[in-house]
């Protein structure tokens, strides 16, 4: 929509200005790591953070959320749709792609009004990544190294100022009445072109093949012995899905107070890596081994989501790799499948099955 320049010196004022109107959330430093948290004062905000432990998803899909409250005696029930006008600052582009997928999931078929309410009242201020955030990220391979089309405001660090791309009316609203921004000069345009041009070479491709080949590679990999090898070492702890910006599965529970009649139905994050996730009455478990559960996770990320929603399910943030105690990573998994494929092993295993 438009492009503006905001001097870095104006950032604290802008954050304070936003705080008068919204709950402002952003990356903050906590014990050597970075977490998205409510910004109490502008100096807590760290816009040039490497990566965050949990993605900003937690503000759209809280780890625990009340769906409705009830009185079991009178059968009164009341939906609990929660929202608060929120601005999330400093969202990396991989996480932007992940939110795009979450948007799609929650609007496909039946609408999830709980997600929708959070989402509609949230404005995202994304930021261009200029160098790799950590050893495990592979955004360049996944095509998420720049912002998807549907952004609100997008920042690019230009040294002593930020380039501010306005992508939506919601984004524009964050600048309305804030005066310490100006229209770019031709120098500013030159600068942003230079910054962008310099960024690409800093990132390397970490997948040994093009991402568009991933679904077909996975289709060939159903019977690969690699899944058993992963299953043998996986702890089934579910950390990988907990930190993943595109994981959204949940469990539903009723919680009652001491009267045993009043209570609430809640949902909490769940993980397909946990044993009982796909078990049905009678004890049959449709993914009874860690091997099958690992396969499901990687298929979901690289193939199933694309088939169901038209978007790939992994945005290459690397969080799951960093979180896994036994070093199971998407890059190594996909590359190993590719290596076996090149040697003809996948076809061989498929034939034997």
């Amino acid at each position, binding site marked *: 929509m438009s492009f503006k320049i905001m001097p870095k010196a104006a950032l604290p004022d802008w954050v304070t200005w936003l705080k008068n109107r919204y709950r402002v959330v952003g990356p903050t430093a906590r014990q050597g790591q970075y977490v998205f948290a409510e910004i109490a004062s502008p100096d807590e905000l760290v816009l040039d953070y490497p990566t965050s432990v949990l993605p900003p998803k937690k503000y759209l899909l809280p780890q625990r959320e009340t*769906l*409705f409250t*009830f*009185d*079991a005696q009178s*059968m009164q*029930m009341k*939906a*609990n*749709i929660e929202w608060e006008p929120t601005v999330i600052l400093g969202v990396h582009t991989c996480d932007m792609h992940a939110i795009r997928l979450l948007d799609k*999931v*929650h609007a*496909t*078929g*039946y*609408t*999830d*009004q*709980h997600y929708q309410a959070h989402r509609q009242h949230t404005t995202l201020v994304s930021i261009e990544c200029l160098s790799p955030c950590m050893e495990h990220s592979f955004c360049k391979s996944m095509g998420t190294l720049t912002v998807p089309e549907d952004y609100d405001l997008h920042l690019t660090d230009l040294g002593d100022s930020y380039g501010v791309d306005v992508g939506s009316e919601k984004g524009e609203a964050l600048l309305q009445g804030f005066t310490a921004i100006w229209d770019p000069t031709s120098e500013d345009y030159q600068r942003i072109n230079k910054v962008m041009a310099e960024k690409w070479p800093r990132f390397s491709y970490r997948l040994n093949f093009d991402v568009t080949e991933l679904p077909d590679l996975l289709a060939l990999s*159903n019977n690969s012995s690699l899944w058993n090898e992963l299953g043998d070492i996986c702890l089934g702890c579910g950390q990988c899905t907990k930190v993943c910006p595109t994981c*959204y*599965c*949940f*469990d*539903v*529970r*009723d919680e*009652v107070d001491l009267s*045993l*009649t009043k*209570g609430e*139905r809640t*949902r909490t994050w*769940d993980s*397909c890596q946990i044993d009982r*996730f*796909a*078990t*049905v*009455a*009678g004890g*049959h478990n*449709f*993914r009874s081994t860690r091997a*099958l559960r690992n396969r*499901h996770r990687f*298929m*979901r990320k690289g*193939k*199933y*989501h*694309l*088939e*169901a929603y038209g978007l790939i399910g992994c945005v290459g943030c690397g969080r799951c790799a960093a979180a896994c105690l036994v070093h199971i990573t998407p890059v190594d998994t996909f590359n190993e499948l590719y290596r076996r494929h090149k040697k003809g092993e996948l076809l061989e295993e498929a034939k034997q099955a």
Partner: protein
Amino acid sequence: MTTLLKETLKHSSIYLPTPARITAVKDLTALEKLFTIELPSGFSLNHRPGQFVQISVLGVGEAPISISSSPSRSNGSFEVCVRRVGSVTNAMHALKPGAMLGLRGPFGRGFPVERFRGKDILFVPGGLGLAPLRSLINEVLDERGKYGRVIILYGTRTPADILFRDEIAQWQQRTDIEFHMTVDRPDESWTGNVGVITTLFPKIQIHPRNMVAVVVGPPVMYRFVLMELLGKGIAEGNIWFSFERHMKCGVGKCGHCQMHHIYTCQDGPSFSYAEIKHLEEAL
């Protein structure tokens, strides 16, 4: 007149149930009870055989349960047959007529009954699979003239597990239904067929060109019955299943029922073999 689904969708949360009253409870076996549930006045269920509702016992939880009565017998109230296996189903078993439940749905894709018209229909319910299949069987029987032969092959583990004994007695008497039954393990009183459900196949004649088979039962049963049906030459698109999966939300969000890229609660639970044969995890 509104439908339960329209009401469910009108709520500000898709997860919010509509209250409904149990009007009758009948013991079917030691583990299974048949519940008649009355919809609020002015509501219809308007379901398709094969669809399920999410039933809530507030304070305990929610479970997906198939609708067991046929559409034409589900005006104002409908039936579900529930086996007690865990917290929600045990809580339901403790409820008496008059007690209130919460309902959402009906959800999922039912069987495409129009496509079955004019064809011979082979029903293969195993165990509790008769509960969902009964909705379709009675739909077909309610409009008997629209279908060809009606064959029912029913298998249970023991004679004590047989559901809907009164109805079965009627089916056995009707000349326009071919009904055969078997148990895996007989007791002293049992004089009928003994063996797994596939031992019933030699008893019937199959003209595959004009036949639809509908198979609902425990996961272990599907492969064996499928081999039998394919062996008889029934087309892959005319072999139908209902898939049970762990389900939490019923609306394609919680991920529990995912089978490949498919959410069973949305695209299923009914599938033809042609639709799922390429999906590794399906059978």
